[in-house]
């Protein structure tokens, strides 16, 4: 007879002691914290790489680093920021907030949750280890296009295997999110009462499971082409390097939405709170998110307009891409309509959400410009593209992550943070992110190519402005770290509702601050009264 554990310890708010709490973690909050701390560390590693890039681009000619190292900076900056900073930050937020928002005791598969986290530090150790080998770090661009990427040395297999590990981690994390949301909701919490952060993450998780295996397949083909004599991307054997781009972007475009949909969810939580109004058009938001996810599978080749695709493909991908502007427009409209006649206040999470709204929309519009196939022949591989995706990823995804941290940090730590410091961080970030990236539009339109350490002298002025913006933006992120450390150590006691005068809606505000170590042991009952979305 096996001993039946009753696990009385479950009922106490006792945390395991020592390093084992983190190494052997199964608690969604501990794992969420590890994800967030990891993401912050990677944000600074990737940021340091960006500083190297901006320093080198301060002047034309070669100043500080040799071109191969510069190339490895652009390559690993992207991989670190996408897979190491933004995605883990979203998974960390999902870990912390989804069980709290749906009234669950924990994530559905707690051990796998820990597995998906701990793979990440090892994956990035593997990726970055090649900087210490003879060939240097991976330098063929984060998109790893053959035949260039196949010419790498020691860095090639470590990059491929690191991506396999990141993919495995993402798939496990996504499975956990879907299973948690589909299986662990409190009674009465029907799907159309689900907080939008959960909705957007649910759809993101579907995307992750659908496309991370495709990326794994693509890089596996690179590996076998390099070492085992296959001809997937070799025309001499009947393959085609452009085929890699198709497979890669079949992953890559949904990946773009993986990086932004959770941000939509975050902003959809924050704007109603600080507008003191229910979210406008809740159902429309859900359907718009689903539409964006669906369309994301049909637009991949807009990254490849200049590869010489048949004309019909150019047209199809141009039009399908523009179609995405419709559900995205629905979202932007609904956020604005939520604020319309609201009683607005401008706490740090709201400030970041508002700047998300403005700046993400700018990035969306430059995206529409890039979607126009004939015009894209001019924009392709210029700094205009760099400006576009940094607007959607830095002032989009990263700002939304910061908004989320400022929104929920008191719930996590039990302390209010320094509002003045947070606002200083906001203004420095919001101003200098524009100083950093807006001039890159001009550079790109004037013809400056991306991923090149040297440039023609006429590009000097705007590059200096951009670099200056970059340095200030980078340094001001240190304020964020100081603020978080202060808030973890102490500060005014946060109430359960944290933003009491704004009456935030959601189950996470029904538990104490800091949230107890074990979330809802017995599920709460959900009615319309404690959701009050506006159904239109």
């Amino acid at each position, binding site marked *: 007879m096996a001993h039946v554990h009753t696990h009385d310890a479950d009922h106490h708010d006792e945390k395991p002691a020592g390093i084992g709490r983190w190494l052997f973690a199964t608690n969604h909050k501990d794992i969420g914290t590890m994800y967030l701390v990891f993401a912050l560390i990677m944000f600074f590693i990737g940021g340091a790489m960006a500083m190297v890039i901006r320093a080198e681009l301060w002047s034309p000619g070669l100043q500080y680093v040799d071109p191969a190292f510069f190339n490895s900076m652009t390559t690993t900056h992207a991989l670190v920021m996408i897979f190491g900073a933004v995605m883990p930050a979203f998974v960390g937020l999902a870990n912390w907030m989804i069980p709290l928002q749906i009234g669950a005791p924990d994530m559905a598969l707690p051990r796998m949750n820990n597995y998906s986290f701990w793979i990440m530090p090892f994956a990035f150790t593997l990726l970055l280890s090649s900087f210490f080998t003879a060939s240097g770090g991976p330098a063929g661009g984060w998109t790893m296009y053959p035949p260039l990427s196949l010419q790498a040395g020691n860095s090639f297999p470590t990059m491929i295997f690191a991506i396999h590990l990141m993919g495995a981690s993402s798939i496990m994390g996504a499975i956990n999110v879907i299973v948690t949301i589909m299986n662990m909701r409190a009674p009465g919490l029907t799907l159309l009462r689900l907080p939008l952060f959960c909705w957007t993450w649910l759809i993101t998780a579907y995307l992750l499971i659908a496309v991370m295996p495709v990326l794994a397949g693509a890089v596996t083909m690179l590996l076998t082409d390099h070492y085992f004599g296959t001809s997937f991307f*070799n025309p001499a054997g009947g393959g085609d390097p452009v085929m890699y781009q198709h497979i890669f972007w079949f992953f890559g475009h949904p990946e773009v939405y993986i990086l932004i949909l959770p941000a939509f969810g975050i902003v959809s939580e924050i704007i109603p709170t600080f507008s003191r109004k229910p979210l406008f058009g809740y159902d429309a938001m859900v359907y718009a998110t689903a539409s964006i996810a669906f369309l994301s599978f049909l637009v991949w080749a807009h990254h490849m307009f200049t590869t010489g695709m048949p004309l019909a493909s150019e047209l199809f991908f141009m039009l399908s891409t523009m179609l995405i502007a419709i559900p995205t427009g629905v979202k932007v409209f609904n956020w604005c309509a939520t604020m319309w006649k609201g009683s607005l206040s401008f706490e740090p999470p709201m400030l970041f959400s508002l700047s998300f709204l403005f700046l993400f929309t700018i990035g969306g519009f430059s995206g529409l410009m890039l979607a126009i196939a004939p015009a894209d022949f001019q924009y392709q591989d210029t700094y205009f593209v760099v400006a576009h995706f940094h607007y959607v990823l830095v002032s989009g995804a990263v700002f939304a992550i910061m908004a989320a941290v400022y929104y929920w940090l008191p719930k996590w730590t039990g302390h209010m943070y320094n509002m003045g410091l947070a606002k200083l961080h906001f203004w420095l970030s919001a101003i200098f992110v524009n100083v950093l990236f807006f001039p890159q539009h001009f550079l790109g339109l004037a013809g400056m190519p991306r991923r090149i350490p040297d440039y023609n002298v006429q590009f000097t002025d705007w590059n200096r402005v951009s670099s200056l913006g970059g340095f200030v933006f980078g340094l001001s992120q240190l304020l964020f770290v100081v603020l978080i450390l202060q808030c973890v150590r102490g500060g005014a006691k946060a109430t359960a509702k944290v933003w009491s005068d704004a009456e935030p809606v959601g189950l996470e505000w029904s538990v104490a601050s800091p949230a107890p170590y074990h979330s809802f042991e017995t599920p709460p009952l959900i009615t319309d009264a404690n959701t009050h979305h506006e159904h239109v």
Partner: protein
Amino acid sequence: MANAHSPADSAKYYVPHGSIWPIFGSVSLFILMIGASLTLEGGEGVPGTAVLFAGFALIAVLFFGWFGKVISENEAGLYNMDVDRSFRMGMMWFIFSEVMFFAAFFGALFYARNLSVPWLSGAGAKQMTHSLLWSHFDGGWPSNGPSRLGPHEDGSFETVPALGLPLVNTLLLLTSGVTITIAHHALRAGNRAILKIFLAATFLLGFLFVYLQATEYREAYTELGLQLKTGIYGSTFFMLTGFHGLHVTIGAIMLTVIWFRVLRGQQTAQNHFAFEAVAWYWHFVDVVWLGLFVFVYWL
């Protein structure tokens, strides 16, 4: 008795407290990947393969340890119906991720057949590529490309005829799909003798499939001039059938494990998530094979 528990026994959703296996698994994967990297790029005197096999060994330990822990928790009645449903959903989405992995390679096959090989032979908009670079190439499928890559001096190779071993293998896998369904019905009806026989038949058919596939590979390599390096045909053929064969092997091993668990009295009529998960997986490799048989061997 421990195994008499049905999943409904426990009221609360079981949240395990502290587990060594995830971090053990992460370290194992790290060692495995370092071993693989060193094997490929380490150069002379670097014990890459030793590290690689250490990684594999650790992964094996991981499976025994982690799954053993889950089995003992299940046998102790800690899992309620909600936990059971989480496992089921998790397995379904895992299988969906596997489907997408194969989709990437099927995509490569379709792209090569319908686009890149015709383009290289001058079809559509790519006339100049053909005229300037590969003017002698007239395409067609199977193809090992304009340079006729492969082991033979003259670039010739033959394909595996669909109606030989592949047809036998199709019948084997389809039969195994029937036997596992019979075993499943027997399991639910509590007919353990039928269960044991038909489950054993299923994994034996699986291993026989793998054996025949290995025979086919040997023939392809030694007699047909069909190898991994035989241009795009060899690449897609071996990557698709190879990953499929790997999945059949894994599935057959999983079925064997389930069979031993059945012999020990586990997997009851009420509580048999593992059996069903492996059955789903088995049907998945079956369906992938049908795709392979039609698009790789037959058409």
